[in-house]
């Protein structure tokens, strides 16, 4: 059952990744097929998570592989909020291959097993919120990358620029910043719950926590610069991507180091 649902999710996401390449070449049917792939894949993964939750004796996503499984689901879920709109569909060019990769890694690492541990409700909520925050940062990074790609096409004055339905630069810039703001708030609540858990003597302060605090500080600085010195456009997109690159590099190193 679990393998079947995993297979469904991988096929759906894979089909979406390929179809969205087709959408970029010739907009139309391929895009619609792609978004249906995302929807069906996401439903299959939702089923997978539900089965895991039902079978596990405890919280099944506290291992790194389990967390990747949940993380991929959150990223695709966040993409679905906008991906259903034709103008944002191509965002999936970055999101869907990443989702396939994350899910495959989760499978390789045993993240679809139904073995859970008992971290307590507080820690489980902490993990879920941290993952949701990171999923939001991933989506914000994809939006910024989308901005830079579209901006480059405008700067190069490509004749085919109107062929693809792409959101305007102003919308991409605004959405990336809003996504960062919401994700940072989510991450901050997650950190606060982690701090409460620490205060209760469940675990101790480690390098991962320090790295997470550094990441949230970096995103806070990003938002501050945006409001105080009008950091917009290309420079804001680069800064957002740099912050995300730091997340991708630092968190795994501290986690596995």
């Amino acid at each position: 059952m679990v393998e079947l649902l995993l297979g469904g999710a991988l096929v759906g996401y894979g089909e979406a990744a390929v179809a969205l390449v087709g959408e970029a070449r010739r907009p139309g049917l391929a895009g619609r097929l792609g978004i249906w792939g995302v929807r069906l894949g996401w439903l299959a993964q939702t089923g997978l998570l539900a089965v895991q939750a039902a079978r596990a004796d405890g919280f099944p996503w506290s291992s790194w592989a389990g967390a990747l499984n949940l993380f991929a689901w959150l990223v695709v879920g966040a993409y679905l909020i906008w991906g259903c709109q034709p103008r944002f569909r191509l965002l999936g060019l970055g999101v869907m291959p990443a989702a396939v990769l994350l899910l495959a890694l989760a499978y390789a690492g045993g993240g679809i097993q139904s073995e859970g541990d008992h971290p307590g409700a507080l820690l489980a909520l902490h993990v879920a919120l941290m993952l949701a925050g990171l999923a939001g940062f991933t989506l914000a990074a994809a939006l910024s990358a989308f901005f830079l790609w579209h901006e480059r096409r405008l700067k190069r004055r490509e004749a085919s620029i109107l062929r693809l339905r792409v959101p305007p630069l102003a919308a991409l810039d605004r959405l990336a910043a809003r996504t960062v703001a919401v994700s940072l708030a989510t991450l901050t609540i997650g950190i606060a719950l982690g701090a409460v858990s620490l205060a209760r003597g469940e675990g101790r302060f480690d390098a991962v926590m320090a790295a997470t605090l550094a990441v949230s500080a970096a995103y806070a600085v990003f938002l501050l610069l945006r409001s105080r010195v009008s950091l917009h456009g290309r420079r804001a997109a680069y800064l957002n991507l740099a912050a995300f690159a730091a997340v991708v590099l630092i968190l795994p190193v501290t986690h596995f180091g």
Partner: protein
Amino acid sequence: MRLALVGLSHHRAPVELRERVALGGAEAAELARSLAADQAEAVCLSTCNRTELYVAHEHLLEALRRAGSAFVDPELAPAIYRLSDEAAARHLFRVAAGLDSMVPGEGEILGQVRSAFELGSSGPMLDRLFRQALHAGKRVRTQTAIAESPASVSAAGAALAQQVFGDLTDRLILVIGAGKVSELAARNLLSRGARIAFVANRSRDRAAELARRFGAEPLALDQIDDQLERADVVISSTSAPGVVLRREQIAAALPARKGRALFLIDLAVPRDLDPEINNLDDCYLFDIDDLEAVVAESMAGRRREAERAEAIVAEEADRFGAWQASLEVVPAIASLRARAEEIRVAELARLEGRLGRLSDADRRAVESTTAQIVNKLLHLPTVRMKQAAVTADGVLYAEAVRHLFGLGEEER
């Protein structure tokens, strides 16, 4: 009922010929009324690119004669086309979809078809034809991207500005040069919600004249720098021999703009705007060649979408053809049902003496049962005749039914 179309269009008739038969709304309505006299229907579609008369009549030759009566000038003869029935319907569907227009997919024609229909003297045939044409036109516009891409340089400029800003409502435009070209480009932005805030020109009087029309502020060319921090879009088309706006001028305004994007359209030859402006952060500059390349690409896109639109038109034309064919068998079906009902009622009347002893409920049951028997017997022949109507056999089936049941024959 048969359908005839006689008309001429931009494909074969130059404007000198088209203007001879062009009709205003009242004239078109009057002509349609006169052609529709004596059991006919008529609609006159007259736009700057075409004049077409659609006439429905019992006889095709009469329909063609009436429709052709508006084109008596012998010089028009080589440019005139005559179509009938399904071909005429398919032509109107293509027209409504914008596939027969100079710019494929242009949207104005759909409104013109609607107006012609409203002013015409339509009956069951033309009513169905024009409603389906409007439906086909809407389907093409919603199910394909044929009307989405710009077809002119000024429309391309506006569409590109939307790629930067999205909604253009209350975006401020600075127009440099008070000529027709800048005005046309600015109007395109204006129609999408932007506001012409400043008009700069070498001659301040001409700037004032254009500014007054748009409620904008007139500027001399050397006052442009002061407004660069406020403008969102700059459109330039002057006859100046050199650069009117240099990179340094824009660069000086950037800090005050606080990261707001600036979109610049240079429609002048030689160019007014320093090409280096495009290398500045948050500045996007398109010159006339860039815009023409965008238009050429989007026209190619329209042609690609036109293939999908043709498929929709063909589908609608088939539906209309099927409906028109079904008209051939409808009278035979109606006669058959009338005859059956007549027999049923007559037989019940013959038994009136015996039925009189029944209660009301029993009488109703007898009525209902006999009606059901008739309906069940006639259901399959009705369905089969309607199916046959779509093919060439429809008329044969109708004749056979008339012959077998003696429909239309005198009672012996």
